[in-house]
């Protein structure tokens, strides 16, 4: 099996993990093709690549969740075959999944310690576990009550819980699969600090992220995957984010954010006044103009998602909504959709797509009425729509009969975007539009959003990535604990300004 250079441990340093010729096929589709990778202790090794490049698949193999079709894995020079994730964990390899894998009915602490409960004799020691979980999460910069059930947490909070859970295992190699995708800068910073600590203790880290500056900041080595093939492995010191982008995408990604013609003062299309979503947001008022891109910034739990959902009729809310001056009230989503408002959920797996259904079904679900001919859903029309969407949104899929759940994360986001655009909305609310999306695709999505605005549609972008908001939006509203606390626009659009508003704390030093 050994074909490519498999240098014997010359200088006596046996790499912690070494894989050679690793391949993986799902049925007829080959996802990984002959990957060789060496991971050293005490190093952060970043893996980057476009959506669908095979990063998650590779990580799942390394952590025993999937069996490779071909190839060898060695730990400390000894060949191993993982019987499953637990086996890998016993050998010190833990994976923080890209998708959130937690039991929604259990509390935070119960999830953190699931499968390895602290027990005194027969009895589980909830006190100790709550304490431990609280500490572990605080170390990550979060503050979550360990006795709350996970089902009540936001995605970001769940992500923190998941990371805390993984780090409690005795580990030699920690694999983070896009851990920061749903984190805001505050938690991201805390996490990066934790990773630095881990490295200092001699643990190896495999780190996947689409945020290239972050990669540059934390990684010692960078490996680039493209189409399931390993393109290159380099020292991080030698590559700048632009280079990474080029290596990933195979072309120059010079400018991420599109140029936008400065829009003159246009008419107000949406006016929200004194909107309250009980428990989440209070007395929020704002206006949205035609052709405008309005950003919503805030920390995790600021209530942005809930405010938008309340406005779209997805959850009970009080307040006035005026569309083009006319007061409307949406008691359900259907009404708001009919009125031309489309909301794209941040939780694309839980609320966006039917993971067990195929792409076609997902694409047309919200706008099925358009495909009905003679009482029937016209499958030919559906197929045509799918072809069009695949082309227009550049959805990378091996086969068109794939299930939505089999798409890579980024392509799922594109599918969701395509699905909601089938409604032809005039107001589009996108919650975390590029969560977990590669830089090439990001560029596409930004361009797309800008294009929509140029067509005269109005867009609200809720995002935890400040550069994205700054690069894309005309104005940014900042929320803190359920209130809109300020607006930044024009020259004031910078990270510092936003963070000050979002945290309510005057920053001494900006990140």
């Amino acid at each position, binding site marked *: *099996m050994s*074909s490519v250079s498999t240098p014997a441990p010359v200088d006596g340093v046996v790499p912690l993990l070494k894989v*050679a*010729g690793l*391949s993986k*096929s799902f*049925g*007829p589709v*080959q996802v990984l*093709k*002959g990957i060789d990778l060496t991971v050293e202790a005490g190093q952060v090794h970043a893996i980057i690549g476009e959506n669908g490049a095979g990063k998650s698949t590779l990580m799942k193999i390394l952590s025993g969740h999937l069996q490779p*079709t*071909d*190839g060898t894995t060695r730990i400390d020079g000894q060949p191993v075959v993982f019987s499953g994730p637990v086996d890998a964990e016993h050998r010190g390899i833990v994976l923080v999944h890209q998708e959130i894998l937690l039991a929604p009915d259990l509390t935070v602490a119960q999830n953190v310690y699931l499968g390895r409960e602290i027990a005194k004799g027969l009895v589980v020691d909830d006190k100790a576990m709550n304490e431990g979980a609280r500490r572990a999460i605080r170390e990550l910069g979060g503050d979550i009550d360990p006795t709350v059930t996970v089902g009540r947490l936001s995605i970001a909070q769940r992500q923190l819980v998941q990371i805390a859970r993984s780090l409690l295992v005795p580990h030699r190699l920690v694999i983070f699969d896009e851990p920061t995708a749903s984190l805001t800068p505050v938690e991201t910073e805390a996490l990066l600090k934790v990773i630095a600590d881990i490295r200092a203790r001699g643990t190896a880290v495999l780190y996947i992220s689409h945020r290239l500056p972050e990669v540059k900041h934390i990684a010692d080595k960078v490996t680039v995957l493209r189409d399931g093939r390993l393109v290159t492995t380099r020292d991080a010191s030698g590559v700048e984010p632009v280079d990474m982008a080029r290596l990933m995408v195979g072309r120059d990604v010079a400018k991420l954010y599109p140029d936008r013609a400065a829009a003159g003062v246009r008419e107000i299309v949406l006016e929200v006044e004194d909107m309250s979503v009980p428990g989440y947001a209070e007395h929020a008022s704002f206006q949205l103009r035609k052709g405008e891109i309005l950003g919503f910034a805030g920390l995790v739990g600021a209530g942005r998602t809930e405010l938008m959902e309340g406005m779209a009729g*997805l959850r009970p809310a009080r307040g006035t909504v005026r569309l083009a001056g006319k007061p409307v009230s949406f008691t*359900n*989503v*259907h009404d708001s*959709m009919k009125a031309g408002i489309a*909301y794209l*959920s941040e939780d694309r797996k*839980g*609320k*966006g*797509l*039917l*993971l*067990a*259904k195929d792409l076609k*079904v997902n694409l047309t*679900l*919200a706008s*099925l*009425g358009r*495909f*009905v001919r003679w*009482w*029937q*859903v016209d499958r030919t029309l559906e197929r045509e729509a799918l072809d069009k969407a695949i082309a227009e949104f550049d959805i990378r899929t091996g*086969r068109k*009969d794939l299930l939505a759940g089999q798409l890579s994360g980024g392509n799922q986001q594109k599918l969701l975007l395509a*699905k909601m655009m089938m*409604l032809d909305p005039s107001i589009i609310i996108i919650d975390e539009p590029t969560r977990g999306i590669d830089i090439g695709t990001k560029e596409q999505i930004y361009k797309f959003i800008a294009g929509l605005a140029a067509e005269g549609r109005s867009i609200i972008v809720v995002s935890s990535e400040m550069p994205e908001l700054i690069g894309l939006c005309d104005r940014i509203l900042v929320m803190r604990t359920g209130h809109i606390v300020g607006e930044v626009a024009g020259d004031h659009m910078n990270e510092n300004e936003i963070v000050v508003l979002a945290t309510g704390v005057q920053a001494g030093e900006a990140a």
Partner: protein
Amino acid sequence: MTETAAATAKARRSWKDVDLRAVAPFVALALLLVLGAFANPNFISVDNLLNVLTRSAFIAIIAVGATFVISAGGLDLSVGSMVAFVASLTILFMNSGAISDPTMTIVAAAVLAIAIGAACGLANGLITTVGRIEPFIATLGTMGIYRGLTTWLSQGGAITLRNPEVQSLYRPIYFGEIFGVPFPIYVIVITAAIGAFVLYRTRYGRHVVAVGSNEDVAHYSGIPVSRVRTLTYVIQGLCVAVACLIYIPRLGSTSATTGLMWELQAITAVVVGGTALRGGVGRIWGTVCGAFILEIVGNIMLLSNFVSEYLLGAIQGAIIIIAMLVQRSLVRKS
């Protein structure tokens, strides 16, 4: 070790996968037919098979409705009592002589049955969706209600179709034949065909499956989840009414025990037919096949003389489990 390994396995595996899951109940059915032929040569006579198919009509038709309810993530335990209730009211109406012309009586009775079935289904649907009670409990409650009302209507006795004219006019609906095939078999086929059309081809059907697959996603896609779900119960009620309409001429009477345990049989038919109880998938034709399987198991038991009558239930239970195991292993092998 580079490429080459790629494009060997064709897409053939995956279509097989999907297909086999749908085909499995039919394979089980075929195996049972073979088994039956060994048990008693009379079994594979056309007469016997038509008999069995005909009497599976009630469960098959009800189970078509149950496929909708279950696909949308619900459950309806009240169908057996609903049969008793709807059939009783219908017979009472025909006995009332409100309409003198027999033909018109039957037509009006049919309309009435459909209306009552739909209303009962609507009640179930509203209790589960608006009242937000688990379907299991909600329909367990209405199961008690419908059966209780039947008992009260019949004052503990039987409700029997009295008018001989109506009776003889109505009788062929169960016992009649067209081209040698009993009428109820046509009703099964038509009901299932309509069901399959609605579930597979219409927008509503797509919504049903979406709701059963992931309620949140359906909600966020602007699908009126409660309405879709409620309607599945109404469809279930309609199917019950249709079953009643062919049930009444068969026995001509109802009592408090009519339709006892039919809910379990209908659900079993649905599951044996390949629909998962957790929702999100519905297989109408599989369901019909499942209903045949259940009826054939009973038929084989009765025709064969090996088994002690005390053990009938045990063997039937064992056969259902074995049938499911066979299905599973078929699907897994693919």
